[in-house]
């Protein structure tokens, strides 16, 4: 992302330019960027001429670190990438190691993984909903979202021992068996959330100010969404069918009944609607599985030291933000030769300039909210 010195030349006052544009640095510390994203925006009055993201503020060289970590260890670094869907990231890594080792994991583990994935997706979408409302200027929804998210976090804490970086998925299955309370708690949560999800619509979706802020803003056409490499709700809001769970089903997704939510609105509101509907679909998936978790092992028998055969392995999963891929190049040793993560946030961010151009500053914030950026996921 860094070209020579363009941060310096783009700093305020030096490039006000003949056109009378104003250059503003939004971030790396800014309430709307939800992390250390740095946007250099060029303004004409309130209208955005150009948005240029500058990355690297939270670069931890995770991919390089993974090269010196074993196949059991490197999974834990992925919890620190997209921390809102850490389960799903871990899941993808576990899948890719299993693919390399050709391990067949027990059914129980598959069920547990999917349920936790969907719970993570719900928690992530809830946080997005609250944060997005806050970007638009409504502060109250944030607390409503966190009320429900807290329940999921409690479930996670009981089962995985952590609330944010779970590290629960391991090659071969899951780390521990479910907590005895798990099913009861999840059912309680589903019942509670179902009674509350209409509140979400009442306080935000139906609000005329909110709709005016979202509709017709941040437009990206289907073709553009594809060419920018958008995935997840960002692309599905533009009518692109890209749900990995449907197109390349992993684990037991092929046997579960759920819909891929596609909206042809192409604007911020479409992306919003997609996520709102996805929450309902996630509930539907959990409901189908929660009573049918088969008995048996929660982890396949694996060797203590994992050695992937020489070759290249790629797996992808659908995180809350889009397609997450893990690409492992193995030379046959105990550590990967090279690992590449395909994170959804990076590609989605690349479309930000396209979406925001010509809109107002307030819209930029709304659009960023609707893309649902998680900065550590972009920077890795």
């Amino acid at each position, binding site marked *: 992302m860094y070209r020579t010195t363009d941060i310096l030349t783009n700093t305020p006052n030096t490039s006000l330019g003949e056109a009378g544009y104003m250059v503003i640095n939004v971030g790396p510390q800014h309430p*709307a960027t939800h992390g250390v994203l740095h946007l250099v925006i060029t303004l004409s009055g309130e209208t955005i001429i150009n948005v240029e993201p500058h990355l690297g503020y939270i670069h931890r060289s995770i991919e390089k670190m993974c090269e010196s970590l074993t196949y059991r260890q490197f999974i834990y670094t992925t919890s620190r990438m997209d921390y809102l869907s850490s389960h799903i990231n871990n899941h993808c890594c576990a899948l890719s190691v299993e693919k390399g080792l050709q391990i067949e994991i027990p059914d129980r583990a598959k069920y547990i993984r999917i349920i936790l994935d969907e719970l993570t997706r719900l928690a992530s979408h809830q946080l997005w909903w609250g944060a997005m409302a806050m970007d638009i*200027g409504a502060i109250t929804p944030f607390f409503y979202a966190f009320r429900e998210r807290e329940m999921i976090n409690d479930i996670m804490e009981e089962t995985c021992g952590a609330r944010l970086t779970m590290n629960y998925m391991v090659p071969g299955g899951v780390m521990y068996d479910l907590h005895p309370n798990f099913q009861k708690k999840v059912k309680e949560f589903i019942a509670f959330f179902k009674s509350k999800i209409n509140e979400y619509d009442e306080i935000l979706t139906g609000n005329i100010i909110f709709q005016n802020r979202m509709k017709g803003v941040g437009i990206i056409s289907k073709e553009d969404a594809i060419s920018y490499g958008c995935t997840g709700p960002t692309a599905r809001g533009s009518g692109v069918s890209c749900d990995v769970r449907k197109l390349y089903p992993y684990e037991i997704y092929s046997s579960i009944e759920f819909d891929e939510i596609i909206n042809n609105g192409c604007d911020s509101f479409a992306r919003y609607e997609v996520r709102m509907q996805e929450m309902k679909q996630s509930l539907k998936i959990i409901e189908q599985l929660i009573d049918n978790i088969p008995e048996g092992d929660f982890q396949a028998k694996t060797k203590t030291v994992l050695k992937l055969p020489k070759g290249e392995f790629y797996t992808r999963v659908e995180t809350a933000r889009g397609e997450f891929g893990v690409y492992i190049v193995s030379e046959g040793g105990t550590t990967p030769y090279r690992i590449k993560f395909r994170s959804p946030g990076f590609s989605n961010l690349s479309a930000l300039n396209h979406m925001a151009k010509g809109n107002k500053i307030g819209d930029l914030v709304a659009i960023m909210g609707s893309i649902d950026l998680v900065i550590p996921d972009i920077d890795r």
Partner: protein
Amino acid sequence: MLSLETITNNVHDWLNNHVSSTWATIIEMLIVGLLVIGLFAMLGLILVLMERKVSAFMQIRVGPNRVGFKGSLQTLADTLKLVLKEGLTPKGADKFLFNLAPYVVMCAAMLILAPIAFAKNFQIWDINIGVLYISAISSISVIGILMAGWASNNKYSLLGAMRSGAQIVSYELSAGFSVLCIVILTGSLQISDIINAQQNGWFIFKGHIPAIISFIIFIIAVTAETNRAPFDLAEAESELTAGFHTEYSGMKFALFFLAEYVNIFVVCAIGAILFFGGWMPLHIGNWQGFNQVMDYIPSSLWFILKVFGLIFLIMWFRWTFPRLRVDQLLNLEWKYLLPLSLVNLLLMTVVAIMGWHF
């Protein structure tokens, strides 16, 4: 009966009996000045706490509950913190304007208090163009905000200030027109006349539909004028970090903060005076018994209740609505509210001429 009116009269008489009338006036002015500053401090303390409690109530939280009884001293602790903080002036800022701006905003908020009747015959200055005075002074605060934004040498501040300028200048029109509706009914610009005209019913009831429309327009317009959500574009936390007061810290920030809350109080007081009879008790036509019972409630209490009712309404807006975008904000005013106010003014004139109001 001991009321604020008798107290002020007694003080006035006592002073005039003991010193010459010039000195009496000077001493009275001093007392009034001190009272206004005291009121300022009290309003700050109460309204900030109220805002935090109201927001907590709406956000399924408890709110401040550690300092003092149920958090009642929280604002005091916050103020203490702000006073002790360093008041930074950024490098490259226009120092004079930067330091002057909070006081301009504050003085504007203070000046509007003059014609407001806090209780029966308890008013600092019953000027005969009271309503006009209020509209005139309320537009001064925008100068302070523009000053703050310009002098900060910060682009966020500048954007916030420009937004605020555009916003206040436009919404003043609607606020002015809705005030005019009431002036048409009363035939007077004087605050005391307006209140006395509501002896047998508040204007919101007496003025038929035009009064209700103008009340709604008034509430929208003053919410915008005080830069409160959903019209808090001048601050717009998620867009402009803190808008025009991004660079302010310590006491100077506190003054902006205080001025915002006093402004809310003032506009709600004006709303209460114009539409809900100010200190006038709830009177219904000629129900003698009912009216007399209502008269037993002190007039100051009536005033406070009405004002705080309206303040609650404005806080309610803030904690439930998302923020408008700047072009939508101006569209709302120039395309919808202003034409509506004009039509409404015409309607009100017809109502007043035909004598359809009660």
